[in-house]
């Protein structure tokens, strides 16, 4: 792949040598050639679309925990040597050198988490136009209240080459395909909308009848309830979170606080709690780069570390933070493959991949709902957010139901739920045995945007604050 970027191994070495010249103790290069394509259906026609090319190389120099970073959008040797010199200036910051980095473990043969039978680059885009038209027709045929359909197919391929001062050369080819649909409905004078999506790291074979059928089905599901939904009376209450997309709870309430940069800097509410019990026995929370075809899968992270499965919480005890190379060296542990970045324009930082909780043994979703006298059941979400220091998290519920005397009653919508991460973890009262990974287009926005996914079995939480009237 070095040909794609027009450089041979001697030139890679000379760029790294330039980066290290000022006294840095680590230098790595991250070459990227990404092609992104999108097609947009609106008013039943695919009348806009395009493609976008992003190409360049980011150069990072470390001295101790400190980072120098520069990039170039042209990959000729003089430009890259110039960028290396800019990044190298961090060595003059007065930082102490860090311990030497250990050699990166090799990826296990066969560990390819991006199945790709049909390469997006050779696909017939005209056929995609027809697929979107059929999706539009399918959705419209399912319910007479459909007023507008907007559907977008986007896909990208990224060719990545990484090289570092240990002489390790790593290549990765990353496909990503996504279909998202927003439907506006009208019933009388009332307008409602719903959005659904699927996103997978695989080739164009992902555009199957099953995927489009699933999207069409979910786009119009629960419409009667949606039109009947009301705001509940707000306040603190028991919350049953349905399997799948409720994994956003783990992402916001716990995952970010487990990212090691926040803990290295003492900012996280979970700093200094390694080895402590943070929730009841039997609960395991994982961040996983090895889920095949998942939006959060990584063959390698963006520091060349092989993708792996990391237990953050084992049997209720905090067992690992999520590390990039800097934090791993600081904590004296091996990197966990969480050093990720949006593109070559950014230095890598600890980021989640696919974050989920393993199934529990407290029965089914119905068992959980049946145990609640008064509370709320939620199953569809949009954005979330967390304050790292305080641990206060929030996520927005698109739809759900009130629970009264163990039964689902009034449908609810458009409410925010807020809680505190450690408290919410400690307040998990029951975990069902129905783990599901959500395949929506989840994107995490911590300083930079990276694709992630999340999942969870149905859980019952004792006490969260629910917005309402």
């Amino acid at each position, binding site marked *: 792949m070095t040909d794609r970027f027009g450089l041979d191994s001697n030139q890679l070495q000379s760029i790294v040598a330039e980066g290290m010249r000022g006294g840095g103790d680590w230098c790595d290069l991250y070459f990227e050639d990404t092609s992104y394509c999108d097609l947009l259906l*609106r008013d039943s*026609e695919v*009348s806009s*679309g*395009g493609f*976008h*090319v992003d*190409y360049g190389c980011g150069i990072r120099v470390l001295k101790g*925990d400190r*980072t*120098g*970073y520069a990039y*170039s*959008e042209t990959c000729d040797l003089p430009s890259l040597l110039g960028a290396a010199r800019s*990044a190298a*200036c*961090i060595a003059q*910051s007065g*930082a102490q050198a860090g311990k030497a980095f250990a050699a990166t473990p090799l990826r296990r043969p066969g560990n390819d988490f991006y199945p790709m039978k049909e390469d997006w680059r050779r696909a017939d*885009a005209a056929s995609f*136009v027809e697929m979107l038209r059929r999706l539009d027709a399918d959705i419209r045929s399912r319910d007479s209240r459909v*007023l*507008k359909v*907007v559907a977008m197919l986007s896909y990208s391929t990224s060719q990545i080459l990484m090289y570092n001062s240990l002489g390790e050369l790593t290549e990765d080819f990353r496909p990503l395909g996504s279909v998202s649909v927003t439907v*506006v409905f*009208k019933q009388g004078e009332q*307008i*409602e*909308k719903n959005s659904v999506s699927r996103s997978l790291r695989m080739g164009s074979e992902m555009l199957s009848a099953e995927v489009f059928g699933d999207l069409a089905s979910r786009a119009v599901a629960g419409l009667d309830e949606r039109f009947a939904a009301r*705001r509940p009376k*707000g*306040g*603190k209450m028991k919350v049953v979170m349905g399997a799948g997309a409720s994994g956003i709870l783990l992402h*916001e309430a716990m995952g970010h606080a487990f990212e090691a940069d926040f803990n290295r*800097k*003492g*900012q996280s509410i979970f700093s200094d709690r390694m080895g402590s019990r943070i929730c009841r026995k039997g609960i395991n929370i994982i961040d996983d780069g090895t889920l095949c075809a998942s939006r959060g899968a990584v063959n390698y992270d963006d520091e060349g570390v092989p993708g792996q499965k990391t237990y953050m919480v084992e049997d209720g005890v905090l067992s690992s933070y999520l590390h990039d190379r800097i934090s791993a060296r600081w904590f004296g542990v091996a990197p966990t493959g969480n050093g990720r970045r949006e593109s070559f*324009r950014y*230095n890598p930082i600890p980021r989640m991949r696919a974050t989920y909780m393993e199934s529990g043994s407290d029965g089914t979703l119905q068992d959980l709902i049946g145990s609640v006298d008064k509370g709320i059941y939620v199953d569809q979400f949009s*954005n*979330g*957010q967390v*304050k*790292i*220091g*305080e641990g*206060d*998290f*929030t*996520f*927005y519920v698109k739809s759900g139901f009130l629970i009264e005397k163990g039964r689902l009653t009034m449908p609810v*919508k*458009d*409410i*925010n739920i*807020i809680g*505190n991460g450690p408290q919410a973890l400690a307040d998990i009262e029951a975990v069902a045995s129905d783990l599901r990974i959500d395949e929506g287009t989840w994107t995490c926005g911590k300083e930079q945007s990276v694709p992630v996914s999340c999942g969870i079995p149905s859980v019952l939480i004792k006490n969260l*604050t629910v*917005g309402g*009237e």
Partner: protein
Amino acid sequence: MITNEELSLTRDALKYALAKGASQVRLTLAKSKEDLVATLNGEVDRVTSCLDRSLSIALFVDGRFGSFSTNKITEDGLKDFIDKAIGMTRMLAPDQFRKLPALERCCSEAVTGNELGLVDPEYTNVSPEDRKRTALGASVYGKEGSEDCRIVSEEGEYSDSIYDTIILDSNGLECRHTENSFDYGVEVTVEHEGEKYSGYWWESSSRAGQLDLSSCGRKAFEKAVAQIDSDAMDSGKYNMVIDSEVASKVVSPLLAALSAYSIQQNNSFLIDSLGKRIFPEGLTIMDRPHIKGQTCSKLFDSEGVRTQEGPIIEKGVVKTYFVNTYMSGKLGMEPTVEEATRPCVLPWPVAGLDRDAILGKCSEGILVTDFNGGNCNSATGDFSYGVEGFYFKDGKIRQPVSGMVVTGNFLRLWSGLIAAGDDARPCMSKLIPTLAFADVDFSG
């Protein structure tokens, strides 16, 4: 910053696209440079240097439209790119409403890029040492805090940047915007009795000499300390005062709902509102894109259409939608501009009110100083946001509040407008002052 060679390549790309079958073309060449020094606990933590360049191409081919971009900007590379882009555009469905804006609507006054005085001649004199000195000089680590309230972390970021954009189209449009930005932001985390609290403050200016960092760290520290022992209030209806720092949260959804895209897709709670009194008489939002020397002022939108000074909502009456050339055709409406450039909420009921005066006017309620997540249903205007801030009584702050959710509908919220202050920060892209609303649902 954009070189003559790059401009020449862009002009050649336009001619090439026309020669290859495009009926109309628009090219946007954008270039930027940013240098940043980040500090952690009073020491340099990260130094970055970024130089970006991209060319966006809007192609109108055989009644069809495609949108493309690349950062591989070489003569041969662009020809190959345009060939493929034209091929892809021909694959799309025809759309009779896709066309360039008429030249007479477009901006002809943006020639040098610095007509609004947003380029600082001192920018090129800023050295790496200056950046380091500025970033470190702003740190309060080790200077603020006490035994029982120590700073556990202070992260600061100083950056200076320049953005240069040129739009060309096949109707003969050529306009340019150049802007410097000098920015500093700092987040301070303090620990008190085992609990952590964080506060953030930032400053920005298009002039290096006008960037005052002297109080940034202290303000961030004070914001963190002010939250110590915060708790939720009882659920119920309260007056809500929103600090100007975060008040755009309740204005942005209104502007989004006035977008013709949202209206055409029935995804707006302000459909059929043009010319009608939808909001209370106290709400006036002006667009003021031509104020010289002010961040985010701009003479043209992304189509190159001339921006206009004028009312968006005036005394509660919706005065304009944001209608670009495409939506103008689709909706059969007169075109305006793509979006608000520099919206400004005017004071009401009197000029000169600041946050303290508004707290006094409301007497009792909750002052919101930060939002924590949440969302707005763009079709209905229903919203629900996490909030934190302070409970106030008799116009005085009494106790910090956190872990609460505010829920409502934007039309109802604005109908309860009590006051709009006169204290918007000029460095913000939306000039929104402190706002006060009556009878808002808080859950805690």
